[in-house]
Every structure is written in C-alpha cells, then in structure tokens.
C-alpha cells in the first residue's frame, strides 16, 4: 500500500460506512438490568425503525425504547455504558445516510418526548422537549402569534436532530443555520448525567452538542429563540444560468435586500430564485433599490424563452414536456387559496414542506450536499450539477446562504460549516428525483461519492455527516482535528455506545 500503514489503517477503518451489526453480546443481561425502562422487543415494532427517510440503509435494532424523560434516558445510557450496548438516537428519522438507523442495540425514539413546555412571548423564547417536530412547535407558537426563526423545510424534522446537524431554511441567510437559534439545552451525556448547558453554563458541552452529530449527548430539552409570526410576500425570478442566479443570490444576501432567499431548480434547465419579504416596507425597498439589479426573468418571459429554445432542439422535447407537467402540478401547490390571504403566503413551512414530500419524496431519497465559502460556491454547484446529469435524468438543486455568527465559531468546528467561510457559507443539495423508480443502493452510493469527492477536492464541507459518508470526515478535516474530537468523544463516552458509526 502506498500510504504509511498507520494512516492507511486509520482512514480505512473510518471508511466502513455500512457498519457491522452489533451482534447482541450481553443483551438479555442489559435488558433485565433496566428495571424502569420499557424495552420493546417485538419484531414488527423494531422493524418500524429499520430504515430512515433515505430508505437505502437498513438496520434492525435489538430493542426500541420510547423516550419519556431525561431520567429514563439517563438510566438507559448508564446501563448501556456498563453493558457496552450501542444506543442510536432517532428524532424524525429524516436522515438520508442511515445516521438514525440502529445497526443492532437500542433505538431510542425521541418523538416520545415531544411536548412544548412553555412559551415566553416577552422574552421571545420557547422551551420544548427535543423530540418535538418543527411543525408541532409551529402549531403551539402560532396560537401565541409567534414563529420559530428557521427550520428545515420538512414538517417532521425534530428539533433535537436539527440542532445536532445544522438545518437550513430559506431565511438562513438572515438567521443562520437552525442550530444557531438554540439558547440552552438539557443534555443527557453518554454516561448518563443530566446537564443544562448554554453559552454561560457548561459552554464546552454546549459547543460540542450543537452541530455535534449526537456524539456528546442526547438533547432532551431545548430553549430556542423565537420571533413574531408574519405571512410572507413571495417573488420568483427565473434564470437559465446557474452562475448568474448564484451571483444574484449572493448579492441579495450580502446587501440584506430580502428576508428570504433561495434557489430551487429543475435540473439546470429552469432555475428559480425565490425572494420573499416579511413586510410591505421591505418589499417596497426591494422594488426601489434591488429589483432592477436582479437579472432573472419573469415567468412569462422565461416560458417564452424556454419554448423557443426547445423548439429548435427536438432531442430535448422529453425534458420540455417534463418541465411543463411539473410546472402545472407544482405551481398551484404553492398558491393554494387556503394558504393565501391578501396575496400573502401563510404558513410557508407547511406549503413548502408538503410540496417537498409530494413532489420530491419517495421511498428512496439521496440528497448529498456541499457547503462552501461564498467564493467557491458557484464552481461547486456547477461541478455537482455535472455529476447529477451523469447519474440521473431528473434532479433538483436547492441552494441557500447560511449567515455565520462569529461568536458561534467554536460550535462550527468540525461541522457542516466550512472552516474557510466568512460572513456567509453557502449550501447546495443535489437531489435526484427518484419518484417510484427503484435504484440499487450501489448506484446511489456511487452518485453520492462523486458529489462528496468534489467537496474533498475543493475543501468544502457538507450539511450533514452521516454513517454512509463517515469516510469523508477525515479526508475533509484531516487527522489532527478529527483525532482531537475523537479523544473528546472517548473521554465523554468511554464505551463508545452513543450514536456510534455516525462519524467516528
């Protein structure tokens, strides 16, 4: 082998992205030692958690525990340390790389702890149990005229899971990644201590747990910053060039011209820059100052241009028909009257998320992504776009900016935030439209590897590190940094039982 044996050994051992199943040594003793923790062992129930939203990775836990309290989780983790039984934590199960799949051991279902504890409209804070879905949280907040800052465009992502990996929204260029809205957490450490942490109390633990991929504890409760709810005013601009659209997106973000920005595409054929505002004043200011600088077209002009362009390219008529059908199905979904009042969109997270599941969801989902500094972003998207083209006839790109908070630098270490980003990081998700099709996992894995390889070559990062891309952590961050985190992990979790095989 060309590389020195020790490096080679270390990097290859961390590349087993489909972990070996834990074989169950000492399981009965472990279960009987758990007096007050109910472990569900019947096969159909365990099977409920055998895969995640990605639908490509399967792992059968030996038992499932429905989370009920921090004390219960503490007892579970103490016993797991003593018996060396792996514990995998699952929130909404919306991982796509198998991170929330248990390859044996215990699957801890955090949705059992999903209540909204209290809302403080004066201090603009909410305290929740961490298994709560963002959509459920929104239901509670809206009764008080409040809203969260930012959350994944997915109704069933859990708060705890999002805080552990990042989370992006179309307002991330303004509010940062979703994990940045956490003010304080209650965490059960891998050895079972129940600890409250924040920037003031136990700040080191807080830094490790936020964007920590579940390595340093189970988040049981979270205090989040909130804001007043506003319906939004939407604008769409259309582009035929990815680079132009990205330049406009970055310009709007830099100048804070809009409250919501993002790019959503159909392949690289129809590129949509979405811009939205919280108030009429912001919209009027945009019209006065920025509208003329945005190079995108209106819907009618773009349709006419696309029509002419396809007219002379008969070999691409299949694509043209696809775009037309997609537009016919998708547009009404974004303009449903029950979510529109006085021309403003209400409950944008519901509207977007429902469309995401309906039009992009499926039994199998792979969404590899790249996160880069602003300067590298356009090139990363163009290279990723070329990979998508090679692997799938139909796909979508979703790009947003992520406002970085200088004071959160320590949170960002070894996370989805690329180390060279300043001001804003940019992320792009590459999502093939699989629909009802069935691809071998092998084909999907080759696709993901091709995207992730771009990240290694360009010095980028990824929104989420999961089991299946564990092989990239060392290649992206290098051994010294990863080894430092590994040492912290070993100290915090001596038996290495909590969410093992996710990144280490």
């Amino acid at each position, binding site marked *: 082998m060309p590389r020195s044996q020790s490096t080679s050994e270390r990097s*290859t051992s961390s590349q087993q992205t489909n972990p*070996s199943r834990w074989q169950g040594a000492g399981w009965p003793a472990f279960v009987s030692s758990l007096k007050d923790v109910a472990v569900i062992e019947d096969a159909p129930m365990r099977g409920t958690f055998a895969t995640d939203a990605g639908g490509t990775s399967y792992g059968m836990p030996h038992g499932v525990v429905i989370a009920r309290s921090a004390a219960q989780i503490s007892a579970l983790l103490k016993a797991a340390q003593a018996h060396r039984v792996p514990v995998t934590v699952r929130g909404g199960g919306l991982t796509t790389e198998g991170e929330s799949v248990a390859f044996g051991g215990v699957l801890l279902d955090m949705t059992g702890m999903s209540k909204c504890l209290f809302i403080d409209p004066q201090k603009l804070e909410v305290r929740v149990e961490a298994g709560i879905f963002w959509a459920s949280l929104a239901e509670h907040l809206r009764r008080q005229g409040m809203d969260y800052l930012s959350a994944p465009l997915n109704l069933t992502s859990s708060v705890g899971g999002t805080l552990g990996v990042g989370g992006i929204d179309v307002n991330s260029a303004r509010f940062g990644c979703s994990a940045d809205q956490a003010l304080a957490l209650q965490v059960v450490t891998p050895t079972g201590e129940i600890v409250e942490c924040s920037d003031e109390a136990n700040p080191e633990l807080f830094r490790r747990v936020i964007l920590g991929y579940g390595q340093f504890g189970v988040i049981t409760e979270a205090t989040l910053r909130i804001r007043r709810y506003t319906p939004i005013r939407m604008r769409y601009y259309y582009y035929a060039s990815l680079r132009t659209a990205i330049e406009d997106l970055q310009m709007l973000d830099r100048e804070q011209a809009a409250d919501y920005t993002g790019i959503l595409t159909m392949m690289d054929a129809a590129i949509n820059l979405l811009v939205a505002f919280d108030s009429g004043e912001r919209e009027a200011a945009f019209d006065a100052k920025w509208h003329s600088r945005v190079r995108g077209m209106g819907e009618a002009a773009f349709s006419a241009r696309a029509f002419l362009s396809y007219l002379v390219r008969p070999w691409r008529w299949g694509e043209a028909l696809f775009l037309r059908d997609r537009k016919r199905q998708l547009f009404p979904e974004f303009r449903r009257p029950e979510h529109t009042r006085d021309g403003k969109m209400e409950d944008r997270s519901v509207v977007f998320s429902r469309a995401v599941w309906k039009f992009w969801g499926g039994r199998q989902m792979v969404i590899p992504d790249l996160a880069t500094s602003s300067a590298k972003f356009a090139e990363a998207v163009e290279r990723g776009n070329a990979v998508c083209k090679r692997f799938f006839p139909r796909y979508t790109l979703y790009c947003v900016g992520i406002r970085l908070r200088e004071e959160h630098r320590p949170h960002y270490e070894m996370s989805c935030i690329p180390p060279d980003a300043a001001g804003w990081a940019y992320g792009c998700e590459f999502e093939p439209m699989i629909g009802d099709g069935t691809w*071998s*996992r092998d084909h999907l894995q080759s696709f993901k590897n091709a995207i992730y390889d771009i990240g290694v070559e360009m010095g980028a990062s990824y929104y989420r590190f999961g089991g299946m891309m564990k092989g990239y952590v060392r290649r992206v961050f290098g051994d010294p940094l990863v080894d430092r985190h590994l040492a912290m992990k070993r100290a915090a979790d001596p038996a290495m039982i909590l969410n093992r095989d996710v990144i280490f």
Partner: protein
Amino acid sequence: MRTVDTLIVGASLAGAAAAKRNVDAGLETVILERKELPRHKICSGILSPRGHRFLIENFGPLPREALHEPTSCRGVTFHFPCLIPLSMDFFGGPTPHLHRRYSDHWAIKRSGAEVHDRTSFVGLEDHGDHVIVHARQSGNPVTYKARQVIGADGPSSLVIRSIYPDYPKQIPWFFVGQKFHDIVDCPLDPQYFHFWFHPQLGHYTWSHARDGRQIVGVGFKRGDNFEARHRQVKQYLEDKHQVRLARHEDEEGCAENFGPSLVNRYVFGKGNVLITGQATGFLNMIGEGMSCALHSGAIAGEAVVEARLRGRPVQEMYRRMIASEVRRTTDQWNPLKIAFGKPHEADFPQALMKLSWRERGLVLRDMWNFLLLYKEFKWGRQIAALAGQRLFSAGYSAQRWL
C-alpha cells in the same frame, strides 16, 4: 428442518455481501458452503478499485492475512504480438491482491450471518411462499425451509441447474488454469497484472507475481489441453519477454462462464430463487468478477429486504435494482462506450494516445486479430445491436435475462 428467512448458497464474496444486507435488516440468514472454511479458491485475487471500495465501505479495512504478496496491484499491462506494452494504472490508486482463502472467510464472518460449512446444496422446491432446500451436511441429508434462496455458488452453479437444468448447455464454456512457478528471472513488473492479446496463446492469457512465485495462466474453450496450452505460453514468455521460470510446483483450474456479460444474457433466477455473483454471468473486462460479485450480491440481498417490505415479488425487485449493475458491466464490452465513455477502471484510451500513430495502429490491429478468435461464438452482431439500443435508452433490455 431448519426454518430461516434467507438461505444463501456459497460462502463467497457475493454470498457475504448478500448476507450482510439481510443480517442488517434483521433477517435470519444462513449460508451453506460445501467445503470447510476457510476454503481455497482459484482466483487471480486482483480486485478492481470499485470492489475494493465496496469491501471497505461494507466490511472495513482488510486484515493483512487476507492479502497475498505483493499486497497490492497498481494496474494492468496489456501485451500484444507487436510487443508494444500498454500500462494503465487503476483509477483511485492501487487495489488489494486478495488471498481468497482468507478474504472470503473474513467477509463472511463480518457479514454476521450463520454459516453451515461442509454442507452441499442438493436441490430445491419452490412452493410459492417458501422454498424447501435439500442439502448434505458431512454426507447426511439436511433440509431447510426459507422464504428466499440466493444462489451465490459460482459459474458451475448447482442452484441454477436446479431451476434451469438446461442452462449449462445454452452458453459456451471455457477453462481457465494457472500454474505457480518459482522465479529464476522475471522482468515483468510485479506491481501490474499482465494480459496478452494474442490469438495464438489462447482466449485469456495472463501472468502476475504472488508470494514470491509467478503465476502463468491460460484460458481457452473447454476441451483443449491445459498442459499444452500452458507450455506454449511459458515458452512464449521466455522467448519474447525473457521470463525464466522453474518448473511449476502447483496448478489449478476451473470452468468459466465467459460471455453473458458481453451479450446481456444474464441469469437472475426464478420465483423465490435469486442468482447472484459470477453465477449470473457478471464479469468485468479484465476478467475480474469479484467487484461484480460483491455488488450484485448486495443488490440481491437488498432485493430480498425490499420485496418483503413492499410486498412485491422478489424477482421484480431484483431485476429492477440489478439494472444499474448490468448497465455498468455490459457498458464495459460496448464498443461505443469504450470509444466515447469511460466504462473501465483504468484509462485505456489515454494509454493508447500516449503511443505514436504507428504504434496505435499496430496495437489496434493486434486487438482486432485477437477479437477474431471469438468469432465462432457469434457475439459480434449482438454486441453491435446492444450498443445501438443503448444509444437510445438508459440501460440494457431486461427481456434478454433468464
């Protein structure tokens, strides 16, 4: 009678990959192996980069004992009657030189499945919702009841014969044999796998270093004489490449099902019985079957899991999912893909372009003459037709599979 979810026949790499997918999904999985483990396996042991990646991603880093010396292989070198060598490095760096006796056993153990060795498959009956499998364990009859059976028992698959008794008569058969020689003097680079495009030497002629000895291998249509074929190649190496070898000490050989990959004539099974690995006919262009075996084995395993959860017939799931592996493998034999795509794991067109115009002409002439050796199998027209169809579709027709 033992009742299991999935029964896999053959403790090979394909079997290990299929087993891993089933075990991970919590299915009770048993592997039957007719020999005692760890068992010997005839193989060059040179794994392709894709296969290497699969092993690492699914089973972790290879232990030292699973490798021969030299432990890795940098690429392949093609030789031609015109004596212009063409060396190509594998994409993504050197790949391991597997010691199949230990690498297979290691993968099988890492899969987590239960293994019954010294147990030979005898026959099966598919009853629609389950399959009864008859086997002999150390000579005594044993019976298994399984929801699905995966046949991963190699080119001369008994599982295929139990569902398609005529299958062996439908395809041409080859024999490949290798002899191990002590080296007196060998100028062939031990870091490469050497292959000869030479119609007089045989259908498949190769040589590489292993554990201080040199392997000289020949492949030919079944019925020819191994001894004579091998003697001729050894002499040729001595005359043209100054390779001086002692008399061989060991030799081994086996039947090969070369051909189905070229013409998209794979066999994937029937009812609840899936065929996977080299038994299906998967073979890469350098004659490497391990990476296809690993990937197709994994796909067979996934198909069993998916079929159950979706309540669909397992053959339907398998055939839908295996399409990507078929496309990848058959693309390697597709002349249009070879010319304009990059279907292989080493860059042949680039190596060719490094030569002068005259040398390129000679190499291509020699390759053509070598291909004429295969004329009798009448594959040319089928390959051309497949290449034509492939232009207009995303894959190869499933209609041609058995």
